[in-house]
């Protein structure tokens, strides 16, 4: 069992957070989609009005499996709102490096997040999973998560910047 420590992310963790974001994007076969920079993460997460919160899992030097990396997992989340049930915790990204999987680190991160949700009087934790990611879907369903897209027919829609600009310029 790897000895690890779960803690709130600090500004100095930003390079590692970006590294892990890119690793997760690679795992989802979308690494060319990551446009965010360290500067964005620093400004957006550690400024006066943070857009996100982050926890990291780190291991001490003698337990490192991959040389040079002590931050080996992270979760990024923020608080959102549902007009029917109120405050929610939204889990945006959740990732543990391959070499450190199977040791309960992911479960511990999820436990910490759920605890944060409950302490902040959130009635639910929401997140998105790609339907092709069977391992993750099983991981979450084992913990009582339900698939709203399947069960209730919710579809996630998006407008990208180009069309946002078009729309906002219309009278």
């Amino acid at each position: 069992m790897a000895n690890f420590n779960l803690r709130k992310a600090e500004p100095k963790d930003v390079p590692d957070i970006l590294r892990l974001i890119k690793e997760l994007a690679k795992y989802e076969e979308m690494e060319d989609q990551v446009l965010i920079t360290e500067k964005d993460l620093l400004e957006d997460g550690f400024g006066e009005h943070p857009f996100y919160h982050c926890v990291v899992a780190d291991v001490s030097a003698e337990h490192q499996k991959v040389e040079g990396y002590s931050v080996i997992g992270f979760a990024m989340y923020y608080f959102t709102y549902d007009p029917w049930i109120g405050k929610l915790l939204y889990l945006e990204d959740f990732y543990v490096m391959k070499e450190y999987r199977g040791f309960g680190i992911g479960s511990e991160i999820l436990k910490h997040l759920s605890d944060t949700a409950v302490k902040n009087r959130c009635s639910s934790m929401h997140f998105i999973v790609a339907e092709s990611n069977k391992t993750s879907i099983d991981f979450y369903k084992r913990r009582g998560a339900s698939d709203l897209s399947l069960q209730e027919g919710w579809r996630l829609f998006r407008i990208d910047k180009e069309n946002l600009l078009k729309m906002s310029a219309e009278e």
Partner: protein
Amino acid sequence: MDFTIRAATFEDCKDISRMILELAEFEKVSDHVKITQRDLEQDGFSKNPFFHGIIAEVPEHLKSREGHTKIGYSLYFYMYNTWKGRAVYMVDLYVMAEFRGKGIGKALMTKVSQLGLAAGCTQLNFTVLDWNKSSLDFYLKQGCWDVTSELGYHCMRCEGEALQHLAQGEL
């Protein structure tokens, strides 16, 4: 039609609460609404709001059959996408039935886009029910795309007992 779009205030919570229930009825799930006018006041208009709102209002002489001048709303909040950064999430968009087809819904959505862009967001995200054909058509016309269809992303939820168990580290 003569209407204005403006930022919601504490005093609008009564009408927002009314319209949330109307929208829930339209979506056939009004028994799911647990949020009260008081919750909206606390969660949207205190020091650290969990959401922001905009209201569509008509002048007195155009008021609804039941005497309402506040006839549409949108609730939104800021979120984070680890690939692209700041994003805005539109939680609800609603116009009372007798005021539809006059460009009010589009004006509300345009306002959310403008506010999002001003805050440095590159995306507007929201969910739509798969049977809601008129809304699906409206959104596709504005240049939105269906992330659930194209990327296979499913909206997941962990709530109530499952969330409590997860917080306590139980499987």
